[in-house]
Structure formats: C-alpha cells, structure tokens
C-alpha cells in the first residue's frame, strides 16, 4: 500500500531525510519513531505531497507522489497532533463537509459518510454547533472525522496524541485501531514508546534522517536483548549519535 523508495529531502544545507526505504501493508500499523528533528514530520509531509522530495520517491495505493500528487492526496487521510486546525466559526458538520467537498465527494456521498462518522464517534449532540466552544475531546473527534471522511486507504498520523489528556488520547488510539480493522495502511509517528508498543505491528526507527532499525517490537527486543523498548530506543539513538 505504501512503498517508500530512497526518499530524501534536503533543506538548503540540512539533509532532513536521507534515502529512507520501507513499506507498509494493508491493515498494518507501522510506527515511525525518532527524536524531535529526526525527520518524521518531513517524511509524512512528503508522503502527503505537501513537500517535494529532493531524491527518491514513494507510491501510495499505486500512485506516485511525484507524478500523481492529486491522486495520492485522495488516498490519504492525515491527523496531526497539537492544534486540531478546525474552523471555529463553522459547525462541526460544516468543518467535515468542507473537507469532503474539497476531496471531490458528491453531496450524497458526503451525507452518507458524515452521518456514519457522527454515529461512530458519538457526536450527534453537538455536531451542528460551532466548533469554537467545543472541548478539546470534542474537537479531536471532529478532526478525526475530517481526516477520514473521504474514505482514504492510507492513514498518516503525525504525533496525534501530543498535548492530549488521557481520555482524548484514548479516543485517538481507538480510532487508529479502528482504521486497522478497516484494512487501512497506517503510519504512526510518535516518541512515546508505550504508545508505539501498544499500537504498532512494526517499528521504523529513524535518527538524523536515516533509518537505524526496522522490525517488529519482539524482534527488536530479542535483537538487543532488552525487554524495555525505551531502553532499546535510547541505545540506538545514542549509537548513531556517536555516544
């Protein structure tokens, strides 16, 4: 579903992503793990065609990110951490519908998809009120619905639980598992090892733009003979930093 081939990105003098390659299959959750500035967000932005790679390419649902960026964007849904990025003066429904329409859905398709998501995320009570006065958890649900309204086959999560309280983070985690059930290919970037261990089938650890490990949680634990994933990560990051 997601095939990344020698993908690189250089910003002036900084090589943010250095020829990384990995793949994600249908129904698989791959954790993209690394410290701040390791290149996680840059990688996801290239996959979402927001940034142009300076080397290599990737294919999403069979579409090339360089040659068919529009088609690629139709296949992906993205959920960002931090600010939810909703329009405060629009209602929850209007926010979701706007993105559905921008993704080229017809009125009937939009209505069916939005109604389904409202029920799934239990938003009936407030969906027609303006988002400005929503709680963080309510906003998070609207943002989730918005990211998936056009029924993408691939989901990208960029530190989606950053800054969330426990219950709001739980909503996001449940949603990620729901996407897995729906057979979507998922990349999940995080620096919380506990979360990664809980959700991911496989881990890609990057440091300074390069992949330093790629394997399942149990493979990594066995390889480094350590049952604590966080210790493994710290060891790997330290090694490639030359410590």
């Amino acid at each position, binding site marked *: 579903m997601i095939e990344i081939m020698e993908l690189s990105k250089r910003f002036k003098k900084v090589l943010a992503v250095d020829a990384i390659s990995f793949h994600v299959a249908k129904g698989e959750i791959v954790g993209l793990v690394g410290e701040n500035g390791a290149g996680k967000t840059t990688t996801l*932005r290239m996959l*979402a065609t*927001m*940034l*142009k790679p300076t080397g290599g390419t990737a294919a999403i649902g069979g579409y090339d990110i360089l040659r068919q960026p*529009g088609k690629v*964007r*139709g296949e*992906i849904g*993205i959920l*960002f951490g*931090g*600010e*939810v*990025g*909703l*329009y*405060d*003066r*629009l209602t929850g429904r*209007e926010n979701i519908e*706007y*993105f559905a*329409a*921008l*993704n*080229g859905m017809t009125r009937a398709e939009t209505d069916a998809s939005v109604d389904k998501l409202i029920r799934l995320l239990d938003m009936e009570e407030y969906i027609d009120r*303006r988002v400005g006065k929503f709680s963080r958890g309510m906003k998070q649900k609207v*943002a989730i619905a*918005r*990211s998936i309204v*056009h029924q993408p086959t691939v989901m990208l999560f960029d530190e989606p639980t950053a800054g969330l309280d426990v219950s709001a983070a739980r909503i996001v985690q449940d949603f990620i598992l729901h996407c897995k059930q729906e057979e979507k290919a998922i990349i999940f970037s995080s620096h919380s090892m506990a979360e990664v261990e809980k959700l991911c089938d496989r881990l890609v650890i990057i440091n300074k733009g390069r992949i330093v490990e790629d394997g399942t949680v149990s493979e990594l634990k066995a390889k480094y003979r350590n049952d604590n994933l966080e210790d493994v990560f710290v060891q790997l990051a330290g090694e490639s930093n030359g410590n």
Partner: protein
Amino acid sequence: MGTKVVKLVFLKELKDIFRDRKTIFMSLVIPLLIFPLLFYFMGSGMDQSVKKIEENLKVAVVDSGNSSLSQYLAGVEKLKLVESSDIEADIKNGTILAALEIPETFDADIQAERPANLVLFYDNASQASQMAYSALTNIIEAYSKTVVAQRLLARDISDDLLTPVVIDARTTEDEEEGMGKLMLSMLLPLMLVIFSISGPMGVAVDLGAGEKERGTLEPLLTTQAGRLSLLWGKFFAITVMGLLSTVSSLLGLMISMRQSGGLFQGSAVTIEPITILLIGLVTLLLTMFFGAVELSISIYARSFKEAQTYISPLMLVSFIPTYATYLLDAKNIDTYYFHIPLANITCLLKEFLAGIYNVSHIAITFAWIIIYIVAAVLFARHMFSKEEVIFRT
C-alpha cells in the same frame, strides 16, 4: 474540479467571515460611520470656534488723541475694546487678539489729506489672532472708504470714478456644487486608494497568516484541492470583502457630504452614472491588486501580528504617489503621470470626477492596472507554491 473548488473555497470563506462579528464591525460598520461622525464633529467644532471668535474679538486700541477712528471702532458691534498695559505680552498670551496704535496726529493727517499711519499688532502664529487681524483690516478699509467718499463729495466728484471696471463672475458649476466638486476631486481619489488598501487588509491577514496561526492551513493542503484553486477562492473572497468595505466607506463619505452642519455644509454634488461606473471599476481593480499583494504577504507571515507589521509599510509606500498628486488640477495633468504607479489611479479618478474621459489616459492606466494585478497574482501564486513560505513557522 478547479472552478468547483474555487467556488467552494470562496463560499466557505465568505460564510466564515460573515459569522465573525468583529470583522464585520471593523470592515463594514466602522467605515460607514467614521466619515459622518468625523466630518460632523470637525464641521461643528470649526463652526463653533469661528463663531466664538467672531462674536468676541477682543482688541486693544491705544489712541493718544481720541481720534475719529477709535470712535468709529467703538461703534462696531463685533469688536470688544479692552484696555491693555502691555500690548505685545497680552497678544502673546491670548488675553487680547490684536491691538491698534493710533498716533496723536491721526485726525490731523486725515484732515490735511496726508497718509495717516496706523500700527496693527497681532500674533501670526494664532488662528484667532489672524481672524482678528483680518476683521480689523476690513473695518479700517471700510472706514477709509467713508473718508474717500467724503473727500470726493467735497470735490463734487462721483465715487464711481474709483471703480472703472465692474466684474461679473459667472461659474460653470453651481457655486456650491463647484466647491463640493473641488473638494471631492481632491479627497475622493485619495480616499479610494486608502480604502482599496485597508478594505481587503483584515480579511487577507485572516485568510493567510490567520489560517497558518490556527493550524488549518496544513490540513487544507492535504486535500485533493489544488493550491491554485485554494488561492483563487481566497483571492475572490478577499476582493469581495474589500469592495464591500470600500462601498461602505463611500456611503459614509456620501452621507457626510450631505449632512447639514458638517464640514461640507450639505453641498450636494451630483455625479453622472457613467462616472460612478468608471470609478467603481477602477476601485474594483485596485482592490484586486492590493488584495493579491496583501494575501502574498499574509501567507509569508508566521502570524497575524507579523502580517500586520509587514502590511503597514505597504500602506505608507502607497501614500507617497497618492499624496504627491492629490492637489493636481484635473484639467491639466501631463500624460507621464499616467505611467506612475498609483499616481495614475488618483489622476484618472480626478479626471473622471471633472467629467474628462481622455481615451489615451484611460487606456494607459487600465493597461497598467491589469499588469499590476497579473504581477500581484503571479507573486501570490509563487508564494503559495513555495514550501519555505507555506511551512515558515
């Protein structure tokens, strides 16, 4: 897909803007009220202060010979003669507005038909004192005329001798309307340029930097909508809001010109429909130009505040050619003015208001405006497609 997305973005932005009471108040309500209020208070304030000074001209007369002139002055109703021991100091501190020194020999000089000298003190840095000065010179002029009339009468000569030529001035415009038109031809082009900058500003800042600051830009860019379609949708929404804001400012200006008691004293000016149409078209195009420039700056800025900081100099720079030409006389504008950015706009608007429709001036200015708009839109497109600009945080 393209035009559909443009329309979608355009309608969404307008809905969003019209739900924002603050923006509606700032860009539609305030412009409507500001001129009527401003001109009303300026007009009534000026009226009152003029009346106050005119009815109370405090003047000191130092007359050592108790001349016929000082008796004449005592009979003038609006003068209030006061004593002063130190004329210059009293004028300086405003206790009196002016002072007249009449020499002892004044009456004798008049009798002997010699030039009689007077000394008039006033403060040329004070508006009130200057008014007193001109009132006094008028009164003395009138007094002189009575003296001349007596002298001529004594010689049995008609005073018609003094006015060999009589001028009957006739204006092409109704006198009041002419004044109004002159004011309008100076004020309106200047105002329209200012409105075209300030009208789209708030919305442009919101739709670029605001979108970045609220974190809505990135999700927007992940949709299938092309960046250019997003840009066009935003650009049209900004243009519409800019125009609405300008129309509201103009309505305010029109109301303020018609209100009695205001600065214009209700001097109604009638403008031909074709002139209104042409002025409207120029304003629309100018609003599009500034809207595109402001959107480019706004998308470059990291935050609302940064965008506002960057847009302010644009306003100042635009004022230079606009102010430089606002006193030009509409009937004598050289063609080269129509090649100077913004100066050409003010000059063309001046000509329209004066009823001049010079085809080559119109063609030159419109060609330039189209070039400005295309350049500004290309610049906005360039900014919108640059990664470093979009992700500048």
